[in-house]
């Protein structure tokens, strides 16, 4: 069966510090991968999606970047965090041609 791992679960970082969140998927090959953000009390915003190694599409301009160095690994990064980067970050995957997305446990990021 497929599983998705996301870490860390919580993170408190000062403004201006770098960020690296990692997500890995097991039990499937060539998944579509996604990073979503959920601001406090708000809906889900798609940040990045990837259909393959090295292929990243960005939905919104922002202070963040994403990379996919391996088939089942997806990384969310920032060189310098802003207060507005605080939120709940969710990694998700879906199969090729399928729409249903399966989510990791999320990372709660607080920028102070």
């Amino acid at each position: 069966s497929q599983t998705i791992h996301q870490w860390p679960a919580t993170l408190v970082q000062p403004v201006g510090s770098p960020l690296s969140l990692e997500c890995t998927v097991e039990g499937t090959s060539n998944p579509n991968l996604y990073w979503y953000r959920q601001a406090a009390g708000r809906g889900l915003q798609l940040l990045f999606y990837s259909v393959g190694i090295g292929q990243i599409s960005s939905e919104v301009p922002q202070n963040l970047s994403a990379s996919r160095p391996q088939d089942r690994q997806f990384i969310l990064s920032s060189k310098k965090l802003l207060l507005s980067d605080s939120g709940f970050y969710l990694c998700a995957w879906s199969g090729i041609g399928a729409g249903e997305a399966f989510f990791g446990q999320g990372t709660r990021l607080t920028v102070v």
Partner: protein
Amino acid sequence: ELKVEQNPLFLSMQEGKNYTIYCNYSTTSDRLYWYRQDPGKSLESLFVLLSNGAVKQEGRLMASLDTKARLSTLHITAAVHDLSATYFCGSGGGADGLTFGKGTHLIIQP
């Protein structure tokens, strides 16, 4: 641009009552997804609706899809406290990912 609108965004109801959450989407799609989110937790897939007229049921929850009206509903029957959560509908999918509504925050009071 695909837009997904849910209503209501907030719902407080008593146990034993019935209610419906509505999800409208702006472009033609044959796929609609419902998720549940508990406070501080991730999203859990509830229902996958893949065609017009699709109906799925799990316990006290039933979801349906009308692609002609671009409408999906999530019906709650005889609500119980354990169903308190935020419910999201999402449309689209595939490589571009899902577009979600803002979520319906459901509180079920004894």
